[in-house]
């Protein structure tokens, strides 16, 4: 399988990465190189093989359903590029 220019632009949109002029063309070549490389997996017979979900057989640990953390809004917004009164500020999303 390989990707065309329209697919590269669609994937960039899904990835939320703006592409500069000419970047999509370069990216198309690189992505097709990688997709060509992974193509060899089609040689492998995986009939009846379960996809791996965990490298070590383990039951997911569960923690008690209790509040164990919190009360640190100032810490959480401390690294935000723009914040106000412990809220993250973003451009207007609802008209």
């Amino acid at each position, binding site marked *: *399988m390989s*990707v065309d220019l329209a*697919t*590269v632009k669609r*994937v*960039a*949109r*899904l*990835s*939320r*990465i*703006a*592409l*500069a002029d000419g970047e999509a063309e370069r*990216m198309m070549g*690189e*992505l097709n*190189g*990688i*997709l060509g*490389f*992974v*193509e*060899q*997996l089609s*040689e*492998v017979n*995986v009939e009846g*093989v*379960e*996809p*791996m*979900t*965990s*490298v*070590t057989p*383990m039951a*997911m*640990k569960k*923690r008690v359903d209790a509040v164990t953390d919190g009360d*640190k809004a100032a*810490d*959480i*917004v*401390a*690294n*935000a*590029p*723009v914040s106000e009164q412990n809220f*993250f500020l*973003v*451009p*207007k*999303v609802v008209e």
Partner: protein
Amino acid sequence: MTDLTSLTIAAARDQLKARTISATELTEAYLSAIDSANGALNAYIAVTPDKARAMAKASDERLASGKAGALEGIPLGIKDLFATEGEHTQACSHILDGFKPRYESTVTANLWKDGAVMLGKLNMDEFAMGSSNESSWYGPVVNPWRARGSEEKLVPGGSSGGSAAAVAARLCAAATATDTGGSIRQPAAFTGTVGIKPTYGRCSRWGIAAFASSLDQAGPIARDVRDCAIMLKSMASVDKMDTTSVDLPVPDYEAALGKSLKGRKIGIPREYRVDGMPGEIEALWQQGIAWLKDAGAEIVDISLPHTKYALPAYYIVAPAEASSNLARYDGVRYGLRVDGKDIADMYEKTRAAGFGKEVKRRIMIGTYVLSAGYYDAYYIKAQKVRTLIKRDFELAFHAGVDAILTPATPSSAFAIGDKELAADPVKMYLNDIFTVTVNMAGLPGMAIPAGLDPKGLPLGLQLIGKPFEEETLFTVADVIEKAAGTFTPSKWW
């Protein structure tokens, strides 16, 4: 007086306990070594002298009062991927500009609890994506090793290139590192240092910027096998903050050194003999086999038939997980923000400016293989292949093999700015051909320097073990180190 930076952790530990040197003297020796070397090597991207001096002073007080921890007063370098409270933590990416976490990673917290001293943060490939440390926002690291008679700058490997270079150049006693596809073992091999990626689940991932969560694992890079054992003992723990952290007590890895190999079975996988592999790598491998045989181990040929599919499967699984993990960098909660006409435009511009080429490439591949219509063909297929890769190892171990010996890398260190590698991402990916299988199967893997190539550059061997049997790797690595010796670059910086 000998240069204090030449002491291994084990030697420094003895002298600190005997109070023949102080933690402050040791830390000052490293700070001045960093000061004179870092301009040439670029191993550290942030040095924390005030913190180092304060921690060393506290260590000296604990040493005086007999309350010393296992790593008391030992100065360490920390890969920039680990969250260190109030200090530079950017995974060497532009998108995390200015980020200073309000919390500490579990691994580094364990080290400080044992008395270690932080010297600063180490350079790495951006978000640990790379095999040459050239994708760092802070520029490439220069390998302290040079080919004989040459001044050409070589890469230290990646992604833990700063860690490996700093250890090799004695700019820290040891360093933390992480390994998703070979990022501890390949740079260790390129710099003549020892590195271990423990079993998935042995070190907590809490506070380590995530690249590919099912593959990422922290481990140390150190000067010798004993120091590596000392470091891993402190780094590893059971942690409720990481649900994949395993509930097993951490053994005393140092106690595994000096044990006999009699009755141990070492597997030699025929699939690791690849086309175009330089003769010196094959010769090194044969030398390693001979050393282990001389030490009483039984050598058996084994087959790991799905080996060649590990790298292609990795380049589906790792980018898929990365595309999801890196979705959080959006210009809202931390780091860089580039304003746009609306919120989507802001996300797209922020991520376009903040991520480097390799990171963008992997996010795009990951997004593609997870997108509607391709998920089964790529992602599910790769996860099935991963099951087969793991099964290969299980069959070998089931047949009685205790550990597996392979080369660590298909070549020695290459030049910074290598045009062929820069032009073809897949060629760069092939650096991890011997290491990536281990991550796919979640096994422990260790790189140990075993010799120099004809150019005078270090080459490493890799040991692969059963899950949570790191001790066996330390036993075997100790035998190799006793036969091969240790390797130090001659100082030119």
